[in-house]
């Protein structure tokens, strides 16, 4: 080893990151330490190594000193490894000769004392590893020129349209019978009060009409294989029992169907038939038959009203589930959110009192296409007073710690709508903080205030029907501290609207696994970087947009959807992707042909050459996890860029300060 090390010429570059690193780590001392290490030809520190001048420093040294390895001690490799690899490449050094040493996220930001010592150990390890790094070549493969968009809410619709408009093929998959998502359930949208359906339905129609979009509703993605640029997705198409190519959406079938069920679209406030479209503007305007309520299906052919009346003969009970496979270069995940179920918080009496409703239920009550035709009616009466409780299940450790971001604004919108529809109604907002941060939001807040809405700062402790005076008889009483007064108030109202948290879909974990993504602590899917890569994920080629990534309003969702489309297009339009060079390779001479590695590979990248009795790794399929490497009893498989030699050298040098000098034999 010693000879190798002395031959290597390593440059070490320590970044101050302003005061982010230099404020905690003594960069001069660390530079001095690095300078003393055998293989180090040069060690420098600089304020911002990622800046132009910082990069120029490295470039110049590579060129002037002929470095054969570079260590950059700065932020996480997840942040700037690509940057410094480019620097090496530009200076004529193979980019795989770079090692990043994380002294920010895993050192200066988390340690008050001992950060300098730890930085030295980490740098020593990186230098050691850098001595053994080998040049690698990346290969390019073509990209499948299509995108898969999962989820047909506003995020998915917007992303699909943009990719399709750019001339690329899009597969849009939606679980429900129609696209539209939560947005199509809303009545008006804040702060401009445009009608949600009015702005969304044209986009839905455009999706249906677009020659580049293949819409698959009532379908789910069940499997994803492959890698960036070359994904293979399997989509399960559930049987509608209605032939989409024949149906004209005339509606005679659901008019004649005698069987009813609660309408999911109307949050159970209204009813639909067993054959139904969820709402009149559904896209596609083709009904589905709900097998749990259709008597024809439940009782072997008794009924069949739809069959009889459909003039086109579109009803087809022989349909079965179908699997479709598509090849795409990029995937946009836009599966949205669920609404928190407030019945868990018994203190607010949701489900116990019929006049305690959720915000989404209120949207349906308020909507002209809703179960009441847009009349706000509970218990058969128009409420003269309404309490709106913010942060139900949000900003609460017991449920969701985060702020759901949209409730303050829609609560103001509700106040406006109630005051508009019910003459002289009193509206009370029970809020903790009013968060009106968006464009035009503060102005809307002012407007709502001027329209006669009462703001009570406090998180209500309960909603009760226990009256303690005449005024409270027959009312719901919202009990809350008015924190600005410092007194508990009892506010009698006719209706209470709860603003439940937006929460990750119940199956968010399954979705994360399906697309090989991570979840953040709150359960939403994790983006690659909170600020700079808001839609990219740890899985190259898969992007998350809209509320699947976290609660957000419509403008933010649309912006993210467009970002996702841009990312997908950038990937597809480039036409090719570079494959990871850090794959595993079999040393044929050493392979004993024991076949232990074969079943271990999750990508079936390892095949066996029976003639030569040797294992063989297909580099296009290998993703470089290294499971086979660690398992090979003959040590015949080498993990490029993570060789045994590199890692052992790294480990040894990491403990440079642990061994007394005399212990070295």
């Amino acid at each position, binding site marked *: 080893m010693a000879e190798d090390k002395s031959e290597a010429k390593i440059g070490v570059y320590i970044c101050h990151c302003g005061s982010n690193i230099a404020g905690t780590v003594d960069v001069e001392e660390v530079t001095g330490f690095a300078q003393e290490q055998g293989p180090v030809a040069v060690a420098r520190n600089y304020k911002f190594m990622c800046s132009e001048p910082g990069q120029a420093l490295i470039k110049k040294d590579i060129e002037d000193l002929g470095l054969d390895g570079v260590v950059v001690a700065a932020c996480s490799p997840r942040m700037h490894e690509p940057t410094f690899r480019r620097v090496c490449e530009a200076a004529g050094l193979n980019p795989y000769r770079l090692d990043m040493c994380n002294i920010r996220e895993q050192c200066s930001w988390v340690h008050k004392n001992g950060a300098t010592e730890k930085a030295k150990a980490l740098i020593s390890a990186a230098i050691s590893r850098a001595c053994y790094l080998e040049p690698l070549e990346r290969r390019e493969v073509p990209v499948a020129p299509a995108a898969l968009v999962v989820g047909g809410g506003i995020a998915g619709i917007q992303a699909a349209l943009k990719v399709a408009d750019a001339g690329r093929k899009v597969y849009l998959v939606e679980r429900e019978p129609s696209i539209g998502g939560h947005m199509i359930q809303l009545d008006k949208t804040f702060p401009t009060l445009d009608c949600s359906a009015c702005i969304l339905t044209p986009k839905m129609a455009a999706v249906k009409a677009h020659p580049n979009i293949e819409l698959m509703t009532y379908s789910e993605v069940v499997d994803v294989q492959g890698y960036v640029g070359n994904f293979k997705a399997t989509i399960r198409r559930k049987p509608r029992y209605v032939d989409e190519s024949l149906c004209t959406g005339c509606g005679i079938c659901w008019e004649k169907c005698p069987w009813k069920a609660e309408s999911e679209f109307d949050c159970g406030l209204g009813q639909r038939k067993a054959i139904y479209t969820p709402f009149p503007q559904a896209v596609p305007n083709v009904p589905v038959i709900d097998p749990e309520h259709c008597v024809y299906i439940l009782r072997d052919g008794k009924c069949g009203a739809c069959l009889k009346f459909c003039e086109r003969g579109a009803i087809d009970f022989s349909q079965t589930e179908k699997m479709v496979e598509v090849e795409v270069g990029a995937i946009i995940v836009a599966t949205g959110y669920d609404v928190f179920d407030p019945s868990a*918080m*018994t*203190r607010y009496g949701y489900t116990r009192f019929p006049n305690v409703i959720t915000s989404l239920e209120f949207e349906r009550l308020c909507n002209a296409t809703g179960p009441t035709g847009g009349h706000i009616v509970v218990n058969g009466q128009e409420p003269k007073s309404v309490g709106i409780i913010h942060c139900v299940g949000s900003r609460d450790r017991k449920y969701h710690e985060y702020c759901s971001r949209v409730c303050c604004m829609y609560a103001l919108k509700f106040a406006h709508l109630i005051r508009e529809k019910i003459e002289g109604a009193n509206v009370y907002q029970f809020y903790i903080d009013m968060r009106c941060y968006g464009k035009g939001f503060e102005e809307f807040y002012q407007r709502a205030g001027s329209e006669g809405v009462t703001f009570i700062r406090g998180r209500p402790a*309960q909603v*009760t*029907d*226990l009256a*303690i005076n005449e005024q409270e008889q027959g009312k719901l009483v919202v009990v809350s501290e008015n924190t600005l007064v410092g007194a508990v108030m009892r506010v009698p109202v006719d209706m209470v609207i709860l603003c439940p948290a937006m929460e990750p879909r119940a199956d968010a974990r399954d979705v994360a696994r399906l697309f090989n993504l991570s979840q953040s602590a709150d359960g939403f899917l994790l983006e690659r970087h909170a600020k700079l890569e808001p839609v990219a994920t740890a899985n190259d080629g898969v992007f998350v947009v809209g509320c699947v990534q976290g609660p957000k309003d419509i403008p933010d969702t649309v912006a993210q959807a467009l970002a996702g489309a841009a990312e997908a297009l950038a990937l597809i339009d480039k036409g090719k992707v570079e494959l990871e060079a850090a794959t595993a390779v079999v040393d044929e001479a050493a392979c004993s042909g024991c076949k232990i590695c074969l079943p271990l590979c999750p990508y079936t990248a390892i095949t066996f050459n029976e003639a030569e009795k040797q294992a063989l790794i297909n580099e296009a399929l290998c993703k470089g996890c290294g499971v086979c490497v660690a398992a090979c009893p003959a040590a015949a498989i080498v993990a490029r860029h993570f060789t045994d030699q590199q890692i052992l050298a790294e480990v040894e040098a990491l403990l440079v300060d642990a061994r007394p000098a005399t212990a070295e034999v």
Partner: protein
Amino acid sequence: MKYVYYPGCSASGTSKEAEESLQAAMKALGVEWTELEDWNCCGAAVAIGTSYLLSIALPARNLALAERAESDLVTGCSRCFMNLIRAAHYTRKNARVREEVNELLAETGVQYSGKGRLRHLLDVIINDVGLDVVAERVTRPLDGLRVAPYYGCCQGMWTYAQFDSVEDPHCFDQLLATLGAEVVDYPLKTACCGGTLSMSRRSVGANLIGDLLAAAGDADCIVTACPLCLFNLNSFQGEAGRIKGTHFNIPVLFLTQVMGMAFGLPKKALGLQRNAVPVDGLYEKIAAGAAVSSAAAGASRPR
């Protein structure tokens, strides 16, 4: 199942009827237990106002004794239960508290290691004995008796969390229904009765009691799961009435008292003569209720 039983101070004094009926009813159910030997006061709601350490160490001593007896510790007092489980919680959670508490306990020759299980009486009756066994014992169902179960407060976080919903518990309802009573649901069933405020700040304590009595409305009686609440709700009805501008005269019983009534146990064994608000009227109501239900049964009998 092996139990040691922790009576608590109120049950042996101001709420004697709780203790008497509890012993009688448990015997009727065939539950065998021994009294925790040499138990001491858990500190009620008073120790916390005097010394943090004592508010943990006093109950912890009882836990230590039960640990030594290697049995589940059962108590019929919600306040005691809460103090005990709180002591277990903090001694487990905080090493310094554990050390100091054991330093105190060493004075009485015991140590507490955080083991051992604590059980509430309702938990034992419902989950160990079982409502089916309770039902078998019922000889005089509480027909037509409208009973308001009072779950009490301090139980919220500590007590019911162990075996029922915290904010909206129903275990008590199930038990009362099994006894044949009509359960009255009312919004303040888990609201605090004021605890020792009835003694230290009468006007506030009685006000809270008044709210509870009023909320139970037209129930024939209130049944509690805590001897301290039993004392409060019974003893200050006059004062509460004066504050609320009304007159309260609603019998308040301990849960094992109504169980004993349904099991047909003698009044004296249930300490029914000790309740501050007389309970005799309840027997008449049950008799009337029984007559109605047997008449109804007769009418519906096929001819």
